[in-house]
């Protein structure tokens, strides 16, 4: 099962993840997003991408193939980071 954690200090309660998730995994409680149904998460990482505060973390997600990346560019970035 996918585990989702929300950094409550970083979350600004915008509710984008709540609106975007087709499986209603999140709910806003006291202006903080809470994953109430993580078992329904299919790992699309849409919420992860749109979260302006980058407050979400997913564990146990199958990473889909990313053949669109430039291997050389990624190697260069890895050397810098």
């Amino acid at each position: 099962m996918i585990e989702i954690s929300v950094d409550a200090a970083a979350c600004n309660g915008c509710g984008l993840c709540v609106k975007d998730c087709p499986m209603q995994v999140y709910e806003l409680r006291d202006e903080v997003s809470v994953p109430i149904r993580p078992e329904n998460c299919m790992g699309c990482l849409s919420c992860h991408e749109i979260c302006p505060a980058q407050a979400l973390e997913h564990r146990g997600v199958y990473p889909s193939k990313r053949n669109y990346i430039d291997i050389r560019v990624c190697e260069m970035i890895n050397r810098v980071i």
Partner: protein
Amino acid sequence: MMAEMTVEEMNQQFKTGTVFRAEEIPISCSPSAKDLEQTLHGVMKLNGLIIKSLEEIAGRGANAVTYRAGKKFGHEVAKYFRKIEDIEEALRELSYILHGQYTFELWKPEDKENYVVTENGETFIYLVFHDCIVRQTLRRNGMEQGGPLCQTLYGYVVGAIEEITGRRAKLEIVHTGPNACLKKLILK
């Protein structure tokens, strides 16, 4: 380095003196991922631009064209599969065979007992598409998901399912994401 070569030196690399006879043409190809990268990205770029141009010229008709193309592809690929009546088994086999182009899993929310759900007179199955060449092409070109190129996948699955099970089907895009997409396969 290519930039330091003269034109003559560059041309020289294509002159190997190798003689090919028809029976000696190699039947296998196994270049490394790095050698394939530029070719793959070139194909992605070309595909993306064809779809963009098609959308500009044909407007909403673009979806019909790409759907048709995908459906033909689906029929073409699936005609060699064994015919299966059980839809769940057919989908599992399809995912296995398409591994490398598309991989998908049958999916159900926790509160549902079966993959095949009947609601409001409609029978459907949720499919989560993980690896998808369409998504990768769109992301390579900075294009929006859910457009005409996604219709090829829609047609592809419908064509393959029709070919394998003999049942008519419809695929609905429920949600698109950077790592996976949720589709609803409606059975008729």
